[in-house]
Structures are given as structure tokens and as C-alpha cells.
């Protein structure tokens, strides 16, 4: 659905984007991660037909963004990192204006606007002045605007930035709902834990270059990171240590804050072996905490924190 080929953008001598190759399938949620100034926003602006790439090509639904701008805009809903609002309009009028700007017939507009207001839970604010809305509400309004012409692709540049935890959770739920509706979503965020929970794929970009693209599993595999488990038993911890160390799928066991930190050998995944073995050995298992690879850790390991 979204594809870039050797996409590059230079601002004078500054390389904002260098030979970016990206492919996002239909119905995927793609998390775009990178430090400030890495090139995320530039990529998104090019895909939204707001910037011309210096080199390379980008396609949305098979259409070249630089050559068929209008057709691409029909298929894309773009939400910038900082969204301006028309402060002379009310929420309903704002959405109706954008509906009209997307050539939606007048008789259909009302129903469509009501629909997106319901989806984004903004019905109670339909008659409120746009600039009187809180930041969270404005972000919702931004999402409502993006959905007004029912685009196949959503490009969301940090939609959760500046929001309180409750608003973030609500946005996350909304994105899940959009995924269920079959939208392809490209989302950038600084709150990596959020992307981890909703993204099918992630792309990590730094200094204009894509340093990784793939699923979470592929990150782990590529980085050679083994699965880990934290185990707590009641009673004889030394015995538990011995039992676990003897298992062939366990590479290492070491005590850690009252727990036993167990590292699986390469090629083994977390399964029920540990719990089963400990119970069979007559040990009471209090806690089993799988320690997955966190996106934050991957981000820190894959990037050097270089900013332009």
C-alpha cells in the first residue's frame, strides 16, 4: 500500500532522508520511530504530497506521489505533528468544510460528519468553537478530519504527543478500531511503548537512514537477543537454581532481586517448560514474568542518538 524507493530529501547540504526503502502492506499499522530530526516527518510529508523528494520515488496504492498528487490525496489522510485549526469555525463546521473540500456531496456530508464525530467520540463538542477545545480534543478532531473522506491510508505524525495518559489510551483504542476497519496506518511517535502494543511492523530511522524495518520478532532475531524469564519460587531457591540450570533450553540462570533471571538458549522460545519442570520438582512457583524485548531497548541499541 505504501512503498518508497531510494527516497531522498536534501535541505541544501543537509541530508534529511537518504535512500529510504520502505514497504507497508495493506491493513498494517506501521510504527515509524527515530530520534528528533531523524527524517520521520520529512518522509510523512513527502507521502502526503506536501514535499517534493530530491531523489527517489514514493507510491501510495501504486500511485506515484509526485506525479498523481490529487489521486494520492484522495487516498491519504494526513495528520501533521502540529495541527492548526480554523479558529472561526465550530467543530461541525470545520469537519463539514473538509468534507466539502474532498468533494463529498452536500446531502451526504451531514451523515458523514456525524459518523466521524461518533467514531471519535466528539458528538458532545459538535457546536463548540474549534479553538476552545483541549489539546486531546483537538487531536481527536484532527483524527476525525483525517477520516472524513474515508481514506485507505492514514499518515499520523505523532498523534499522541502532548496528551495525558487517558487521552493516549483513547487514541490507541481508536487506532485499533481503524485497523479493524482495514485502514493502513503509518504512525510516528516518541512514546515507543504505545507503538509496541499496536504496531504490526516498525521502522527505526536515524540520520535520514532506515536502520531497521520489520516485525518485533525480526528485531529480536536480527539483534540476537534471547528470550528471558524472571522466576520466583517459594522455599528452596538453590534447588530451583539447580533444576533450571540442568535444562538444555536454558543458557543461563542467575539470582536477581529475589528472582531467578533465566535466559533461553538460542533458538528456544518462551514456553511452559520452566513452570512444568519446577512443579514436577516439588517447588511452589509464585511468579513467572516473561521479559520480552522492549521497543525502547531495541531503539536504544539500534540508534546512537545522533541528531542533525
Amino acid at each position, binding site marked *: 500500500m505504501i512503498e518508497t524507493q531510494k527516497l531522498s530529501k536534501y*535541505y*541544501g547540504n*543537509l541530508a534529511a532522508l537518504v535512500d529510504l526503502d520502505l514497504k507497508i502492506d495493506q491493513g498494517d499499522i506501521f510504527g515509524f520511530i527515530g530520534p528528533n530530526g531523524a527524517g520521520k516527518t520529512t518522509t510523512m*510529508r513527502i507521502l*502526503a*504530497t*506536501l*514535499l*517534493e523528494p530530491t531523489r527517489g520515488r514514493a507510491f501510495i496504492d501504486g500511485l506515484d506521489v*509526485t*506525479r*498523481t*498528487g*490529487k489521486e494520492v*490525496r*484522495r487516498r*491519504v489522510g*494526513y495528520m*501533521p505533528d*502540529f*495541527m*492548526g*485549526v*480554523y*479558529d*472561526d*469555525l*465550530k467543530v*461541525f*463546521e470545520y469537519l*463539514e*468544510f*473538509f*468534507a*466539502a*473540500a*474532498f*468533494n463529498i456531496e*452536500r446531502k451526504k*456530508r451531514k451523515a458523514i460528519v456525524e459518523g466521524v464525530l461518533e467514531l471519535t467520540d466528539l458528538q458532545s463538542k*459538535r*457546536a463548540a*468553537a474549534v*479553538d*476552545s477545545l483541549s489539546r486531546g480534543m483537538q487531536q481527536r478532531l484532527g483524527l476525525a*478530519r483525517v477520516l472524513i473522506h474515508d481514506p485507505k491510508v492514514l499518515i499520523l505524525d505523532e498523534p499522541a504527543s502532548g496528551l495525558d495518559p487517558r487521552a493516549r489510551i483513547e487514541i490507541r483504542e481508536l487506532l485499533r478500531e481503524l485497523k479493524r476497519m482495514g485502514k493502513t496506518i503509518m504512525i510516528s511517535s516518541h512514546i515507543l511503548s504505545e507503538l509496541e502494543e499496536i504496531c504490526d511492523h516498525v521502522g527505526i530511522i536515524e540520520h535520514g537512514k532506515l536502520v531497521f524495518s520489520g516485525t518485533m520478532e525480526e528485531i529480536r532475531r536480527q539483534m540476537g537477543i534471547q528470550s528471558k524469564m524472571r522466576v520466583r519460587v517459594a522455599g528452596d531457591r538453590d534447588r530451583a537454581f539447580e533444576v533450571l540450570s540442568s535444562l538444555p533450553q536454558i543458557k543461563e540462570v542467575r539470582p536477581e532481586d529475589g528472582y531467578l533471571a533465566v535466559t533461553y538458549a538460542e533458538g528456544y522460545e518462551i514456553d511452559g517448560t520452566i513452570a512444568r519442570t519446577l512443579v514436577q520438582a516439588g517447588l511452589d512457583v509464585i511468579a513467572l514474568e516473561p521479559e520480552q524485548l522492549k521497543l525502547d531497548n531495541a531503539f536504544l541499541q539500534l540508534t546512537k542518538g545522533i541528531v542533525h
Partner: protein
Amino acid sequence: MYLQMRQTVTRLLMRMKQSVIRLLNWMNQWNPIDLAGPIVDKELRVAASRKRYYFLRTLYISILTLFLAGVWFSHVGLGPVRAGALRAADMSSAGRMAIITIVSFQFLTLPVLAVVLLSNSVSDEIRQGTLAVLMTTPINSLQIVVGKLFGRLLVLALLLAISFPLLSIVRVFGGVPWTFVLAGVFLTFTTSLLGGSLSLLASVSIRQAYRSTLLVILVLALLFLTVVALHTWTAAGSPPQWLKEMSGLLEFLNPYAIFYGISSTLLPGGGSNPSMPAWFGHCLFIVLVSCGIALLATIRLRKVMLTEAFGGERFGFRRWFRLDRKTFIEHRPLRTVRGECIVWKEMQRIRPRTFAPFFILGGALLIVYSPAAFLMDRFLFTKTFHSWFAGVLVLVGLVRTASLAAGSVASEREGRCWPLLLTTLLDERQIIRGKTAAIFIDTAPLWIWLFVHTIVFIALDVLDPLAIFALLLTIPPGILFFIGLGMYFGTRLKTVTGAVAITFAAPIGMSFLFPLLGFANPIVCAAWSMQLTTENVLSDPFGLVFLGGFAAAPIIVYATLGLVFLWQARCRVRRDVFGLGQADVTGPRG
């Protein structure tokens, strides 16, 4: 013995040093910069680091030099030096004209500059959210107002100071009394102070700097026009006795009238030297008025600061009459998008349909027709009145057109709505066409008023039918020119104020470079249209040629330029969308 003396001297020196430090500390308490708090200091630092102020000073000196050179060559020329008394007479005449020109130039430009410099003084702080930060410091609202006012007026004082040595040197040529130079400098400074304090007061309430600039310039223009109107009425008819009596007081209160009075004494056939008490008293009065305005700005700023900090309702009559845009939007019913969406949206922006236009229109009708109808005998039936009417109405209409055009794109760029609009299915042509149509719809009542007025007075046999023809030929190119120019600069600049300023400055600069273009501007042409008579034009071949040229020049030049600028604006719609400058230049796409 030597050691004892040395100790005594050292002790004395130490005491002296301490006394000096104590004296300096005491004097420092009364340092005006400290009195106004750290705001003046900040303003001076900002002024010192901004390239625009260096550019302003260079431009100012260049213009002064140009004026001087112009006056010198027109009086002395490049020919052989004349001998004796003739040479002295030439020098004296050149010196007098040079001083009148420089002082007049300063008097007319510096107050406008003061208005521009202070137009964003508070509104920028509010928009950037730094006013709330200032509230958390011990700085009070008075210190903010005084700091802003004096910090920025110091830039102007520097410009005045630059010209002072020049004036002193030219004065050596003779023919100009010191009182004139002094009066000119004082009047310029006090008028700048008045303009600056008015602009500061406006910037507390109005968020857009260009709006406060236009409002204050309108107030200053009204002051200026009062003098001209009084003189015109007195010359054209017989005003009532009370108006004649009032005119003396109005002239004393009006800086432009005082300046006109003192400069006319230096012109050939002028009266006696300006009387010191008149202009000095006026200057004192203006300083007092400015202090009052600054105090009002302080009170208003305090209210705004409290509203910013704690929220709450807007205050005053603006809310009661729903003149306040925000209150009006909150209370009005939902509207449906009708017709072209971009035109509809623009109309919500530029004319949110508050009660304000009714007040403005009613006031304008009252101002225009009541003095002409009731105060002056048959003044409505003189062509002078209609010339003034057409000139002022076209000026107001074109100023409105230019500011709306410059703001139509720039406001979206400034408010970061521009990328949202560009990701819709609206193309460049639709956007530019829609915005142009909205500007025309907004200003249409003014043009309708002008044409209805002209038709009525043609029917009453006061104006010639040619007037309507001439107006039709001169006004549309003017509208097209200013829409094109405004849109073009709107797509180039990041801020509305910048775009509006350049849109106004560009035609003025153009008029300096091409004086013919300045002469044949739509305002002058509209004013002249009212003076036309069929007999003269048709009987005199020169009249016909004059009418042809007079109509053709604006049509060809202004319409062509307007179209070129509109085309350029259209080409730039998708360029530099995020205001990143040359680095981010992209072309329009389908």
C-alpha cells in the same frame, strides 16, 4: 612617619572609593532602565541583534541623503557657481528647503514607524505564551508597558539623533530659525510617542499586528484629515460660527495642524516665526495624553494577563455587543457550507458576521453625509466633496483589499492550517480563485456604495456621466493589483504582519521608482474621475487624450501586474509549505 602617612592616604582613598560606590548605587536607583525593569534591557538586546534595525537605519540615512541631494540639485544645480550675494541666496534657499524636507519627512514617517514597531509588542508575548511566563516574575504590568514603549521608541530616538547633525550642518547655510528645527524634533518625538502608545494599547487587545497598525494609522489619518477637511470647508463655503471657534482648539490639539502652521512660516509668503508657546504647549499636552494612554494600556494589560492566567469571560462593551469574535462564535448557531467551500471558509474568517459592520457602515454614512449636508451650505453639490469622497473610499477599499489578500494565505501559514488545506482535493486554482472571490465579496459593499453615490449625483446633475465610466476603468485594475500583490507576498512570507507590510510598502517603493505609476494610482484616478466634464473632454482633443491615458495607464499597468502576481501566487501555493525557506522549494503538482 612615612608608613603612617601611607596608611592615612590608603584609608582616605578607601573611604572615597566607598563613597563613590554608595553614590553610584544611589544614582542607579533612578536609572530609567532599572525603573522600567528588565523589559527595556531585553528590548534593547533584541533591537541590537535584529538585522532589520540595521537595515532600517541604513535605509533611513539613504533616504535622507537622497532628499538632500534632490533639494540641493533643484536649488543649486551642477552649473557654474554663482558669485557673491546670488550664491548666498541659493545656499540659503537650498538650506531652508533641505531642512523643511528632512523635518517633514521625519515628522510623517517616524510616527508611522513607531506604530509599526509597537504593533506586536504585547500581542506577540500573548501569542507565544511568554506573557504567562512574565506573570510568574516580579515584573508588573506597568513595567511591561513602560519597558516596551521606551525600549522600542529608543530605536526611533536613534533615527532622530542620526539626522540632528545633518540638520545642524545644513542650518549653517542660513534662513532657518533654531525654533523650527527644535519644534520639528519635539513634534516628531511627541507624535511618535502618541502613535507608539496608541499602538501598544491596540496590541494588548488585537492579536494581529497588522490590524493594530492599520487601526492606529487610521486614527492618525483621521487627525490629519481633520485639518485638511477644516481648511477645505473653510475655503469652499461658510461654516457655522461654532465650527470656526472649534477649529482653533482642534488645530492646537492636532500635531499635523501645528506642524503645518510652523512649516508654512518658512515657505515663501509664509507668516511670522512659529510661536514657541503654541508648539511647546501642544507637545506637553501630547506627552500627557500619551501617558494617559500608556496607563490605560497598563490597566488593560493587567486584565488580559489575568484572563490569560485564569481564563474566564471577556469583558466590556465588546462582549455585550458581541463585537468580540470569540464570544460571537461561541454564541452563534451552526452554519452549513454553501457554494464553493473555500469562499465560504474565507468569509467565516474575514467577516464572521458580528454586529461590527453595521456600526462601521452607520458611522461611515453619518461621517460622510451629515457634515456635508447640514454643516456646509450646498457642499454636497461641489465636485471637491465628491473627489474627496471617491479618493477616501477607494483608499479604504484598497487598504482592506490589500490587507485581506496578504492575510488570506499568510494567516493559514502562520496558523499552520496551510498543510491541511493542501492535502485536500482543492487545487491551486480553486484556492486562489476562492480566496480572491471572498475578498471581492467582502469589499463589495464599499464599491457598491461608491457607484450608487456616483449614479445618484449624476442623476442630480452634479457629476458628469463620464465619472462612472472612469471609475469602472480605474478601480477594477486597482483591486486586481492589490489582490495579486497581497496573495503573492502571502505565499512568500511566514507572517501576516510581514506580508501586509510588504504589500503596502511595495507600491510606495514602486511609486518612488516610477513616479508616473504613483501619479496614475487608482486613488488619484478615482478622485479625478469626479472632476471630469463631458464638455471639456469631448471638445478638447487634449482632454480626450488625457482621459484615454488616464484610464489606460492604470488598466494596462496595474491589471497586468495584478495578473502576473496572481499567477505567481498560484505557482507558489505548494512551494515552501512549511516556511523552511529556499531549502524547501517544491513545484505545484496535479
